[in-house]
């Protein structure tokens, strides 16, 4: 059973910057990721939208492994601000998990 935080997407930060809901889950980002990160970014963004805070926290290594190189963003047909979204997740983890 998953614990859902209905306010999670808002807690991640600036709603205008975190535009994960534009993602249509096509998978191009995963296919072109130079790190071969299958989870990033589409599944991760879905966890945020679904309020699955635990799942996001468990995947912190994936979140910090992203190169922010924007290869995914350059290929994204939905114009998702992927790199900025990943940075928002780091900001959240820094505060919530690492108390920075």
């Amino acid at each position, binding site marked *: 059973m998953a614990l859902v935080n209905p306010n999670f997407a808002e807690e991640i930060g600036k709603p205008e910057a975190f535009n994960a809901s534009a993602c249509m889950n096509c998978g191009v980002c995963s296919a072109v990721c130079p790190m071969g990160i299958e989870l990033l970014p589409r599944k991760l963004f879905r966890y945020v939208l679904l309020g699955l805070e635990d799942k996001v926290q468990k995947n912190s*290594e994936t979140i910090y492994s992203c*190169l*922010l*190189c924007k290869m995914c963003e350059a290929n994204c047909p939905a114009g998702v601000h992927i790199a900025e979204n990943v940075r928002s*997740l780091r900001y*959240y983890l*820094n505060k919530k998990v*690492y108390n*920075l």
Partner: protein
Amino acid sequence: MPLPTGDTIGILADNLKIRNSVLPISAGSATRWARGLGLPRGGETVIYTGLMYQLIPYITSMNKAQGMIEDTPLADFARVGRFVNRFVNISSLMAIPQSAMQERFDGILVNIARLLRQAGVEPGYMYEDDLYSGALVYDLGMDDVLEEHARKVYRNLKNYGVKNLITVDPHTTNMLRSVYPALIKGYDLNVKSYMEVLAERHAWALRSLEDEVVIHDSCVYARYENVVNEQRTLLTGAGVTVREPADAGRFTLCCGGPAESLYPKKAVAAAERRVEQLKAAGSKVVTMCPICLVNLQKAAHNQINIEDISVYLARAYCPE
């Protein structure tokens, strides 16, 4: 045990907050490249290094130490390290640079200053006040620390009366041109990379190199700052045939460098993948970012020759 994420980020952010750089270096090491060039202090137009090239020899040495403790029980000592680092600059004890590497990276900055002068630009320099931009801390999501630092950098630039910044690397270009304006109300500095300045001024080569290189674009120049054509124009003008690897220009493949601070092994694996693409296109490669240069070189094991683009440009555009 991997490097502890929170403590590693904490050390980098603490350093920026307390010592103005993620990896503090002495003013002497930061400004040594400019000795003998007679660059005036400050001015309306300055060459702004953001310490990126100067930091690389220190970062390399630090990463070697990190690589040795990554996935060992010693990684846990980073927790203690963060506490101690607030009082004693332990990162400076871990990062002892190789002098040959320092000379090489200082030489790149000298090339850039000479190229600008040759193109009719007489930039000033801020010497010990040429501060790090905070790029790494921004990438790691430490927005509050970055914002405070950005204000400090901007105040410093305004105190010097600077209006135009000529940057030398993609990360500093991106921070000062695209990130700072979103953080600082009224930000009014004009920022261009030296390659953009040279291309705009239609720099004229003194000799044709009759050479051929594979170009490795920086992700930040290509996808964040749309700097893709200038480097090609300048190389072509120098009589250099530009060979494009698989994944080039706007779709360039990352060198893996951004993973270096937390996951050194992943960074090398990514660099190895890029080196394979570059090798398939030719044996001489040019980069335009110090992080790309050092990370690709590490993965190339001397199988290809990798140089900063300024090395080729200085040979063609500057007097001997």
